[in-house]
């Protein structure tokens, strides 16, 4: 054997070895393919014989076919004490994330959410996991599962100590796959955009209000707003007020004709009420003594600011007093304080939730409420370098600055500014007996913005006529108003609060549209 031969042989051998390897590889491939096909076939077969096909699916439309005595537990009640129990619940699919043989869902109900887990097991098939992963976000599902304690807290959910091991999942109402806005984007704090992640601007939110209202922030805002109304009623009823309903379609503009909506009314025209002013005063003249009213108020001002709406909810108070209008001021201020206290005690969770997205300092107030006279306010502003006349009205920036000065000096976000110049108030405002340049009128402020405007009203028809004439008001047009006071009218005072403003300023928000469920402004009439 020569070396060459040897080399040749080994070459041959090497070649045949290579070929053999190739063959083997191909065979292996084929085998694998076959195996896969067998597996697929098996799977397909399994598809046909899905052992958990009764445990998931799309429910027929609920048309009240049957009355199940199934107890649906609210997500907010799922906590450690329910551990290892089997529960049913109805919720939305907030997010879903499939990962191999399991699928994580975040199930949301109002502002609460819990982590759900669909994992392949004794009762759960692969197909079921796949189905769960494919449910569109925001669909409503009925879910049955075991509540299980978790070792590590789930920070992204409101129910941190437990998760739900899902055994059954049915779609009650499917959502379309594409949402006009993402809920997670809509609750992201605007300050935290260092990651460059999306936030949703105000107009997009309002255009798709029903989606935006589902966010934890919106849910909390409107629950708190409901609390404001409830506390307002509770407090006043305890103070022996009665609730009245007044018409909103009126025949004459109550305060000057400029900012009023005119509407056609059969063969004539009518106006939408700018405030229940006339009617609450008429109630006082009709011996109801202490009245309040909660209802819509309309303003046709074409102002596109952060704090003006064309329709808002007015909380109005009117009350007869004995000798001094401060009796009324005290009652109103106390009512507001009771509201603040009530919110603080009952709505802490909501306040914290809103704070997560819109951070603000907690609302501070004093008891009894701080009352400053207008001139004191003006002198505080002058000390801060503001130039203004004694009888000049407060501009919005000055109003805000005064709020900061008061906060710094007295540490309160809520105060009363009393004794406004007569010239800047409506004609029915009672002049100050000691200085006719001023009046028995007052504004109340929260975080430096006006929330209530009120005054002692003139209950003497002659004085009322004189004031109206002096301001150039056509006395004929307000004849019925003046006439109400001709048959004995008690001295009275009152004020009106904007519900949306109270909510906005209590929470330290910056736009009134956030606290109006379906806001109306000069540019928005829908939704």
């Amino acid at each position, binding site marked *: 054997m020569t070396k060459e031969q040897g080399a040749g042989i080994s070459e041959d051998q090497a070649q045949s070895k290579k070929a053999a390897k190739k063959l083997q590889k191909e065979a292996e491939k084929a085998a694998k393919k076959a195996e896969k096909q067998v597996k697929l076939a098996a799977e397909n077969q399994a598809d046909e014989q899905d052992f958990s096909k009764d445990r998931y699916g799309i429910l027929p439309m609920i048309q009240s076919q049957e009355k199940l005595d199934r107890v649906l537990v609210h997500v907010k009640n799922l906590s450690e004490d329910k551990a290892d129990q089997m529960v049913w619940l109805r919720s939305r699919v907030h997010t879903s994330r499939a990962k191999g043989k399991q699928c994580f869902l975040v199930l949301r109900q109002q502002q609460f959410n819990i982590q759900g887990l669909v994992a392949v097991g004794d009762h759960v098939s692969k197909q079921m996991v796949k189905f769960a992963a494919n449910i569109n976000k925001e669909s409503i599902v009925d879910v049955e599962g075991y509540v299980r304690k978790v070792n590590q807290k789930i920070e992204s959910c409101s129910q941190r100590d437990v998760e739900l091991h899902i055994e059954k999942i049915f779609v009650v109402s499917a959502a379309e796959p594409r949402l006009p806005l993402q809920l997670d984007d809509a609750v992201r704090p605007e*300050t935290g955009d260092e990651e460059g992640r999306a936030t949703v601007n105000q107009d997009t939110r309002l255009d798709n209000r029903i989606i935006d209202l589902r966010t934890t922030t919106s849910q909390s805002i409107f629950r708190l707003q409901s609390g404001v109304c409830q506390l307002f009623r509770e407090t006043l009823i305890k103070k022996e007020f009665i609730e009245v309903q007044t018409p909103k379609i009126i025949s004459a503009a109550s305060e000057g004709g400029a900012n009023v909506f005119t509407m056609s009314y059969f063969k004539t025209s009518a106006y939408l009420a700018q405030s229940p002013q006339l009617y609450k005063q008429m109630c006082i003249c009709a011996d109801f003594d202490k009245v309040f009213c909660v209802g819509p108020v309309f303003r046709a001002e074409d102002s596109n600011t952060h704090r003006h709406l064309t329709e808002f909810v007015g909380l109005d108070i009117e009350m007869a007093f004995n000798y001094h209008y401060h009796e009324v001021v005290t009652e109103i201020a106390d009512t507001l304080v009771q509201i603040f206290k009530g919110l603080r005690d009952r709505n802490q969770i909501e306040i914290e939730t809103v704070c997560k997205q819109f951070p603000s300092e907690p609302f501070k107030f004093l008891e009894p409420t701080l009352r400053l006279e207008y001139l004191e306010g003006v002198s505080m502003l002058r*000390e801060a370098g503001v130039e203004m006349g004694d009888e000049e009205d407060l501009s919005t920036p000055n109003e805000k600055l005064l709020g900061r000065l008061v*906060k710094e000096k007295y540490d309160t976000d809520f105060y009363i500014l009393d004794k406004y110049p007569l010239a800047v108030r409506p004609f029915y405002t009672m002049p100050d007996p000691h200085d006719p340049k001023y009046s028995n009128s007052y504004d109340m402020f929260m975080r430096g913005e006006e929330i209530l405007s009120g005054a002692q009203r003139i209950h003497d028809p002659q004085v009322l006529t004189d004031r109206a004439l002096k301001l150039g008001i056509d006395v004929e047009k307000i004849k019925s108003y003046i006439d109400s006071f001709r048959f004995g009218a008690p001295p009275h005072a009152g004020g009106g609060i904007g519900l949306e403003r109270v909510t906005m300023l209590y929470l330290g928000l910056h736009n009134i549209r956030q606290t109006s469920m379906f806001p109306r402004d000069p540019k928005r009439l829908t939704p």
Partner: protein
Amino acid sequence: MVMAVPAGVELSALEETLGLGLGGGGERRYRQGDGGVPVLQTNNRPDLAGLTTIASHLVKVAKKEELLGTTPEKSAIVQQWLEYRVTHIDQCNTQDDKRTILKDLNCYLKDKVYLAGNNFTLADIMLYNGLHPIVAGLTHEDREKHVNVSRWFNHIQHYPGVRQHSAAVIFMKNRLYPTVH
């Protein structure tokens, strides 16, 4: 362009600040040269042009050279801020420009009493004059946001003789606004 005090008026005020009455050095008259640059006409010497050039000259006439810096380093810093006054502050046109100037100065003044460290110099006077219309137009919130500028400005406006005829700007002693972001 910030509506500043005319340069002639500012220089006359500076004369008073420096204690140059009608006597010392004789009567000085200012006229506007090309492009609004002030020109100082003197009796027996060639005309001097330019706000900071004239200002430095006046300091020497008043024999207060320490206002131009006592060491070479300090002098360089003073010159640098005088330059800043005419190139940046006098040329600022937009809100953005103002904000940038205030932001930069606020940062620079963080660890300083005066522009050139621990000594009062001509730079403080000239920057005070230049910034007056800007600072006077700020809201309290903005003054608080630029707290170092406000501290320096308030200090300089109370420095004997500096303020002259310009209005005092009011600064609040306490913080009004919660930690401004």
